[in-house]
């Protein structure tokens, strides 16, 4: 029996879905952990990023925080927290590690979004007499929306992926199915668990892309603006774009294409 057939058989066995160690329970744990951590990290990162972006300061902080996060393996932090005195406090080590790694993409993207928001538009709005909060809610946040959502998407996918690792440090979630399978030398279960986790991660990514498009406050307008800009760029001869090699510190020239950085 091939591993895929074995996995299919495992997945279609009702007994594997029921009970404390069943798929439903693990899926529930996974979603609960991921959701909680995503909400917590948004609550921490977004106000800070929006405030820094609104002031136009602290860019170096936002970028450095996410650069440092890249070098630290999530697994190591999970295990360290589990062995620390916090380890006796149930799911808290997992929650802390997940939040710790979700904050950087949120912070960086939200800050960049605010930073890239068209300064002319912001100035115009200020000239029209908008107050600080009005400016933030009605001009800056809608303009920063695409990057804001990119950050939330990166963070969400990362949290779902990292919640899998919690299993290695004794936490719950779908990862438990994989680690239990490794423990019993049960390849069918390992593959079944991996398929479940992979499908869940892809599903989350897909749903967020759709939600991102559906809720964009300036959907039609932004597309029109982009087309106009592209037409304008094409009109300029290439000679107007001086060649500038990317500096070593700058990773992406186009921050809208920023990817989540995997360390899990």
């Amino acid at each position, binding site marked *: 029996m091939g591993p895929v057939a074995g996995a299919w058989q495992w997945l279609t066995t009702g007994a594997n879905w029921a009970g404390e160690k069943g798929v439903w329970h693990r899926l529930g744990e996974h979603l609960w952990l991921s959701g909680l951590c995503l909400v917590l990290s948004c609550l921490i990162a977004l106000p800070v990023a929006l405030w820094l972006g609104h002031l136009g300061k602290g860019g170096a902080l936002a970028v450095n925080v996410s650069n440092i996060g890249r070098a630290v393996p999530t697994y190591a932090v999970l295990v360290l927290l589990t062995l620390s005195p916090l380890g006796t406090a149930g799911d808290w080590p997992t929650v802390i590690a997940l939040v710790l790694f979700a904050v950087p993409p949120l912070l960086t993207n939200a800050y960049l979004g605010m930073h890239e928001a068209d300064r002319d538009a912001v100035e115009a709005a200020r000239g029209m007499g908008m107050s600080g909060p009005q400016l933030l809610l009605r001009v800056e946040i809608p303009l920063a929306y695409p990057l804001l959502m990119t950050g939330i998407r990166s963070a969400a996918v990362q949290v779902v992926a990292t919640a899998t690792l919690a299993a290695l440090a004794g936490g719950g979630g779908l990862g438990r199915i994989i680690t239990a399978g*490794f423990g019993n030398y049960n390849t069918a279960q390992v593959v079944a668990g991996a398929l479940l986790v992979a499908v869940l991660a892809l599903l989350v990514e897909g749903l967020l892309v759709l939600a991102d498009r559906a809720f964009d406050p300036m959907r039609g307008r932004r597309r029109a603006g982009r087309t106009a800009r592209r037409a304008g760029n094409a009109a300029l001869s290439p000679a107007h774009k001086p060649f500038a090699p990317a500096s070593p510190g700058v990773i992406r020239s186009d921050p809208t294409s920023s990817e989540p950085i995997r*360390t899990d």
Partner: protein
Amino acid sequence: MAATDNCLTANDWICGEYLRTRSQELVDATLQHIGITAVSVLLGLLIAFPLALIARHRRGAAGPILGLTTVLYTVPSLAMFALLTPVFGVSPAVVITGLVLYALTILVRNVLAGLQAVPAEVREAARGMGYGPARLLFEVELPLALPAVVAGLRIATVSTVAMTTIGSVVGYGGLGNLIASGMEGYFKAEVLTASVLCVLLALVADVLLMGLQRLLTPWTRTGKKRTRVGAARRAVRTVRAGAE
């Protein structure tokens, strides 16, 4: 004797005795870690380069190549290694294949972006000087794309160092193996030492790649120096003008 053994029996986070008695284990794990990371990133680069070239030359291929590598990136690492285990058995190939697949996403994008950023007039000039496509690629386009390529290489390397630790599920995780065994035995010094070594490894690799880029692209440095001199001259001129 009892005093030196103390930190092992007390299970301290930091323990010199641990470093001394288990140095061989630490060295082995670090070497395995470096080996797996280096092979993965190099293989990733070897595969990403032709993929980026194909994506550049055929518009129809760019979408599927970028799309597929991005979808692979979404799969959690534990699931990725687990899915590859039936294919390769329990071997380093599982870990390396998984890491190569992740590195591809970053490397293909950066190589492509670097090549696309080469100005058309530079390409035209080289062609006018009689450069064939291969010479154009290796002697003109690639050197100019190097900063973007190295930037991608740095991200890929640093995150690969971090992710190699998950290879411990199949026993090939380098320092991750120590983290896993430390977790099992509740051995704090082992976990902390391995974690710190892992972070250090990532930082050292990053600095080395940065140095490599500086060596390979000397023209970016002279440019900077020139502007710095220019800025100083301008500043002197401004000061003089103010004094007059």
